[in-house]
């Protein structure tokens, strides 16, 4: 089992690469995590974002669970906030999450297949 000693090794390794990060700079990823979002599958989506962002060391990006914005039928909803721009993705699954990370967060190009405008309510 992973012990606290393993954690201390991780800490010592991480200490060398720590840097201060401003809370509001960079990109914010908001994942709808109310009852509707959770039951539609937001939890694995959020986990994927957290893991991949940490794995790629994208330390200016923060992921935050948020409440419901009132479009429960098209959850899981993910919003990407960057400066003045807001992109809303809906019906996001793990596969879509990988595309959003690669193409939008890293590549800077909106993944138009999942943007909210594609769906008719």
């Amino acid at each position: 089992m992973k012990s606290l000693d393993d954690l201390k090794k991780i800490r010592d390794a991480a200490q060398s690469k720590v840097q201060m990060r401003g809370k509001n700079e960079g990109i914010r990823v908001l994942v709808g995590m109310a009852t509707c979002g959770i039951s539609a599958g937001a939890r694995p989506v959020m986990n994927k974002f957290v893991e991949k962002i940490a794995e790629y060391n994208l330390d200016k990006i923060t992921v935050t669970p948020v409440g419901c914005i009132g479009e429960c039928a098209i959850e899981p909803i993910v919003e990407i906030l960057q400066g003045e721009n807001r992109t809303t993705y809906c019906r996001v699954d793990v596969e879509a999450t990988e595309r959003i990370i690669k193409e939008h967060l890293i590549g800077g190009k909106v993944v138009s297949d999942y943007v909210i405008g594609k769906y008719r309510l």
Partner: protein
Amino acid sequence: MNELSLHILDICQNSIKANAGLIQIIITDSVIDNIFKIKIIDNGFGMDKKTLSEVSDPFFTTRTTRKVGLGVSLFKMAAEMSSGNFKISSTKNKGTTIIATFQRDHINRAPLGNIEETLIILILNEKNINIYYEHNYNNKKYIFDTREVRNALEGIPFTDYNVILWIKNNIKEGIINIQKEESV
């Protein structure tokens, strides 16, 4: 929701909204007593008597955007469907406690599911709320406490990739371990 850990994630969002500083999640899984119990205790701002009497009504919500709130009522339904029961108590400015009891071998009792995914989301909350997780399996016990981990990390954030993997593995293996030892 087909996993009890999803309900836990949902209920704990309420605790976070109630400005809790500590959320305690205590699971009691007892084969002998045929009981599966989930206890969630927070020290948030609590509810008054009137609110408390209304929370498990699906047509009650503190939200202003619309008139339904299903989180607590779905959890209650899940417990009652597996011939268990559901209790919620709260004191204003002290905190709220939820106890959901399930008949362990009832066909409607959902599995706990991926609890480490639930906990990692709760642990990475922006307000640095501490999470205490206790899992009892018969007479074996596994404990995960963010206060302990925070001390060991000495300022390294929980968002570090290796830290996230360590936390998830620790929880997953910790629970498997207590169940394995029991069956020998």
